[in-house]
């Protein structure tokens, strides 16, 4: 892989303009702004209804300096497939097609079109920004809302079910590249997008995206909360290539240091987890510790070989 990008080597050209209707401190704004720098100007975006359509612009305002196709909720990957076909007919195969959907448009409503496209090995990059709920319609639960989170339709006990592991579902399709990233680590996201664009077939990147109004924290803490999710081991940054999972960036450093921040620090930083008792947090900590002891073991085996 090429050298890591730094802030100084990042392209200065802005492809997403200010004046958009994203909330103050929006994690998606950060991921989108840096993500589009990685995609470059020769790109067509396909976007279903989501916070991103609000960010892209409510008619007659557009904030993105790229062609954007806003499609129905279920059809992001199907529309991207059609676009690929149209570009092929016109001999414009250098133009990149990118689907960028929210967690609802990926994990819940959009999953059959995405699964079909991944099985057909359509040559596009699909990105899911996961703000763990239907945020722009008023914070409803989605398939990727974590257990215990209060949403407007799980108001009394929080969500009872587990978070759907979408990167694992996508990896099970046997596609060449699956990665997770976080809006709090935009350079890691930038490098993963550049890597995905260099590969053919369907690529999938899952971006953990802090949402100040939906998660219940002050807008200035967007980066801090996103970073805590990674530092506590609650959300991991990794790449899956040829079926092999490899931790990257900040998560890779955590394996070396073996010092996870207590997961309570992350959960207590947001009001959506206010119903969790100390016992429930201890349970979540135990789940995180089990997951990470697996990572430590794998790292130990890799070092021994």
């Amino acid at each position, binding site marked *: 892989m090429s050298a890591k990008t730094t802030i100084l080597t990042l392209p200065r050209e802005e492809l997403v303009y200010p004046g958009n209707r994203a909330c103050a401190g929006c994690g998606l704004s950060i991921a989108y702004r840096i993500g589009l720098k990685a995609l470059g100007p020769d790109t067509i975006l396909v976007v279903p209804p989501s916070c991103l359509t609000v960010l892209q612009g409510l008619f007659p*305002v557009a904030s993105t300096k790229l062609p954007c196709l806003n499609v129905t909720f279920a059809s992001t990957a199907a529309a991207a497939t059609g676009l690929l076909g149209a570009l092929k007919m016109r001999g414009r195969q250098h133009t990149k097609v990118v689907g960028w959907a929210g967690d609802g448009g990926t994990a819940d409503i959009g999953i059959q079109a995405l699964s079909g496209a991944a099985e057909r090995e359509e040559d596009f990059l699909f990105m899911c920004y996961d703000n763990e709920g239907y945020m722009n319609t008023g914070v409803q639960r989605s398939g990727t809302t974590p257990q215990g989170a209060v949403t407007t339709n799980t108001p009394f006990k929080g969500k009872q079910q587990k978070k759907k592991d979408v990167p694992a579902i996508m990896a099970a399709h046997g596609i060449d590249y699956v990665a997770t990233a976080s809006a709090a680590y935009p350079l890691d996201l930038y490098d993963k997008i550049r890597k995905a664009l260099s590969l053919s077939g369907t690529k999938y990147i899952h971006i953990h995206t802090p949402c100040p109004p939906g998660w219940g924290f002050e807008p200035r803490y967007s980066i801090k909360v996103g970073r805590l999710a990674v530092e506590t081991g609650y959300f991991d940054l990794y790449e899956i290539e040829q079926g092999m999972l490899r931790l990257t960036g900040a998560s890779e450093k955590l394996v070396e240091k073996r010092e996870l921040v207590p997961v309570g620090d992350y959960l207590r930083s947001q009001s959506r987890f206010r119903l969790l008792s100390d016992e429930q947090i201890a349970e979540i900590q135990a789940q995180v510790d089990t997951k990470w002891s697996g990572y430590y073991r794998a790292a130990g085996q890799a070092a021994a070989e």
Partner: protein
Amino acid sequence: MSAAKKSDWDVSDIDTWGPERHQLGATIPVAGNSEEVETGGWRSQVPVISPEKCTGCLLCYFYCPDASIIIEDGKAAGIDFEHCKGCGICARECPAKAIAMKAEEKE
């Protein structure tokens, strides 16, 4: 980011448009005209830069969700007040504490 400029697509009388003036698929023929929209009015707190403390790490520019930090000579030189939403991420993330959030004074 330069000051807001008017695009070629005039939508000032869009409330009076009939179906004959709207393009099929509600196409927006210009890209980036959001620049004409001011979101500065959302602020309740305003970032203030102390230039003598700035070390030029560019983290504020990098993390700003609205690309509203103006960089000159490799340092934070000012804020695009027409668009800054006052989220305060720049002040929180600045390692040199060169940006402080002050209460916005409205006239």
